[in-house]
């Protein structure tokens, strides 16, 4: 056999072997996703089932220290306070619930890290369970988009005959990222492993904080707060409702969401959409002096619709605070109209959260965009009020 043929044969073996190996790896990661780190979007929970972890959450545990440590001024050790003592229990599937999960539950909750609340002692779901004396099955996982939510509902939720399916909606995170990527292999085959490596690499990078802007002093009515927020999704607020409505991203999200609704209803469950106000939603409209928020936009460009109807970055234009304030509720209005069109229960704690800020309180973590315990209490109260008033046979 000539040299070229031998090389070609060797290349074929390597390619075939790699493909088979990646298939086996994909199978293993799908069967045992606990091998991967929390925060990687997967179709299965990534915490070990039936375990209890006890830990303290400090300021320095916030997301921003991981994703953009260059933007945040270092915290002195003496100031790095404990924000929450957490006892994190998982059920027999790896979700955050008390085990065992009963055969029938009051509600399934499909959310992201916000409703999972790994940084808190009592997510709103726990508070509501105690209030209503009914079991909630919290299927929230960090980074789970609408497709993961659909899988969780089918695989874990519906077999437990829920009365309600509550879907957490964070437009700035949920509506984007639905591009179909032409791929030879399943997109997931290598992505979680690469994500894990990337996270590990990111965590080990030296940090330079010369351009640190957070905490950013922002004047609100009656006081000034040190605001830390606004990571990778701030550019979402550059889109108005009409642009969002026309986008293919929204079309895919909408379609999958309505499939979830149909599936839930065909299993005799009622559906509620829980809108998730983020820090920009709540604080940006309240800021007394718009220019104070300008530093948060460093490095961001607005988004636009491309010729194919996908949302993409528009680096030729500048993103301004006024644009964000104008469109702060565009995503919310769009999803609210969907809820009304399809007779879904709409739960919006935005006003309650805004009111708490105006009352001098802070419903978000200090250095993080997640709700703190007060935020979860407010949300639990809002959900409770909505559920008891709703008609669900």
């Amino acid at each position: 056999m000539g040299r070229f043929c031998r090389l070609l044969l060797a290349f074929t073996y390597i390619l075939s072997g790699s493909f088979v190996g990646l298939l086996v790896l994909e199978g293993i990661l799908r069967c045992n996703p606990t091998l991967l780190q929390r925060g990687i979007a997967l179709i299965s929970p990534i915490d070990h089932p039936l375990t209890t972890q006890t830990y303290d959450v400090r300021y320095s545990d916030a997301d921003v220290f991981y994703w953009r440590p260059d933007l945040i001024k270092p915290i002195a050790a003496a100031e790095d306070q404990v924000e929450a003592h957490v006892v994190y229990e998982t059920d027999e599937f790896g979700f955050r619930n008390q085990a065992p999960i009963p055969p029938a539950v009051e509600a399934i909750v499909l959310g992201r890290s916000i409703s999972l609340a790994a940084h808190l002692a009592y997510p709103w779901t726990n508070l509501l369970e105690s209030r209503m004396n009914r079991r909630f099955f919290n299927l929230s996982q960090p980074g789970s988009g609408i497709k993961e939510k659909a899988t969780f509902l089918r695989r874990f939720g519906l077999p437990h005959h829920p009365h309600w399916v509550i879907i957490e909606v964070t437009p700035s995170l949920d509506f984007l990222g639905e591009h179909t990527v032409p791929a030879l292999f399943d997109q997931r085959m290598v992505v979680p492993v690469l994500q894990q490596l990337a996270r590990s690499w990111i965590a080990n990078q030296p940090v330079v904080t010369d351009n640190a802007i957070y905490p950013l002093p922002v004047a609100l009515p009656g006081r000034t707060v040190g605001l830390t927020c606004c990571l990778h999704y701030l550019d979402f607020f550059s889109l108005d409702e009409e642009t969002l409505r026309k986008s293919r991203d929204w079309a895919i999200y909408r379609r999958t969401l309505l499939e979830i609704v149909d599936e839930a209803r065909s299993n005799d469950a009622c559906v509620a959409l829980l809108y998730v106000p983020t820090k920009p939603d709540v604080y940006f409209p309240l800021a007394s002096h718009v220019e104070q928020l300008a530093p948060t936009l460093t490095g961001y460009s607005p988004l636009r619709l491309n010729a194919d109807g996908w949302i993409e970055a528009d680096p030729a234009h500048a993103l301004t605070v006024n644009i964000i304030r104008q469109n702060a509720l565009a995503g919310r209005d769009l999803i609210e109209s969907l809820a009304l069109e399809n007779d879904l229960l709409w739960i919006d704690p935005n006003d309650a959260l805004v009111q708490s800020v105006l009352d001098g309180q802070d419903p978000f973590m200090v250095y993080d965009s997640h709700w703190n315990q007060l935020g979860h209490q407010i949300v639990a109260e809002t959900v409770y009020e909505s559920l008891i008033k709703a008609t669900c046979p």
Partner: protein
Amino acid sequence: MLLHTASFLLFLLGVTLLYWRLPAGYRKPFLLAASYAFYATFDLRFLALLIGLTLMNFYLGRGISYSRYTRLLSWVSVILNLGILGVFKWANFFIDNLRLIFQALGMTGIPIGLELLLPIGISFYSFQAIAYTTEIYRKKISPAPLLDLAVYMAFFPKLLSGPLVRPPQFLNQLSQPASRPDRTTVQAALSLLLVGLVKKVVIADSLASICDVAFRAAAREKGAVAFPGLLYWQGFYLYSFLIYTDFSGYTDIARASAAFLGFDLPENFKQPYLSENITIFWNRWHMTMTQWFREYLFFPLSRILLIKSGRRYARQIQIIVTLLTMTLIGVWQSAAWTFVAWGVWHGILLIVNQQLNWRFSRGWQKFVLGLVTFHLVGLGWVFFGSDTLETARNFVQGMLHLSGPLQWVYYLPPVILCAFLVLSIDLVQGGYVKFPARLQSAMRPIIIVASIVVLVCLALVYQAKGGDVRPFIYGQF
């Protein structure tokens, strides 16, 4: 330094390269030094114990061979080796149970437990020491030079979890000049190493370890039965695969490591889950341990009892000695009632099989019986994997109580993937499935590349995630 870690593989590479570069006269001392260095990475105190045991057995061996007190010294050797093992392994078990009895009787003066760390591998090298002195007593071997004995006891590929090598088998290899393994041997060793790593890292650690959930559910004080029955069935099958691939994977790595150094260690597993009855299972599972107990306990004890009874109660003696041997095998595994129960369970199965003496010739009958055997063995593993008898009871109750949604889609895939991988390896390794030579030569490189890709990716995943390496199950014994 566990055998499935990158640090061990680098260590093995370094030792192998240096070993073959050294003049023949320096190889044994080098091998001993490397083995001691390997063991010292766990704890220097363990090394001191191993050296002490080696010296003790060396002098006892010489005493048995050259003194008048042959029988006495042979018994002294057994008692001392078992005694040392017993202190480390079983002392706390007995003290804890004694404490329970004291408390039940309302007595004071409760014995204090010993805070002793169990030296890794002690169950294996102490049994090898007993085999050494016993073989001298039986005049099967002569006392070995101290260096040879030290290498026999400490040889790093088999130090932690066997296989239990018979003294003549290893000492003969040591006494002959080492010959560099040829290309075929090296290729075979590399394949075995790869298979061992796949079994341990891919199947045992990454897949079958999911079974931990079922044991955690069973260990809960309240509501163990409230978990879905499928959870326990998943745990049942996965633990059966886990214990097999973990231990046989270790053995494969150990044998491959030894082969690189020119040593041939015996097989320890021969596709045990393909056995059609329990007797055949025990001829294929942890074969070197079974042989040890058969050679040094079962046969001698049976012989003594038969002689004393005038050969009148052969059947009863067989039953009693079988039950005793299997119970002691359970006790040898670890000091807990669950292991005693496991041993007793297997004793009962063996006795029933011996008494029924069913023989089937048809393929489908053997298949059905094989499935039954697998499940009966699996039931024993429930005790093996449980931390208390109550946990084992809850586990079995959970299996029988098929409550909760039948979420096959969730519970079945890991079992199917595990079963597929284990069966594929066993059917090919055992020669049950043979492919045409051309297909074999085409598939072989693909399977090798696939195995390496999976292992490297999993290593990167574990490295990126952090956390301790999952130890070998038998390393804890």
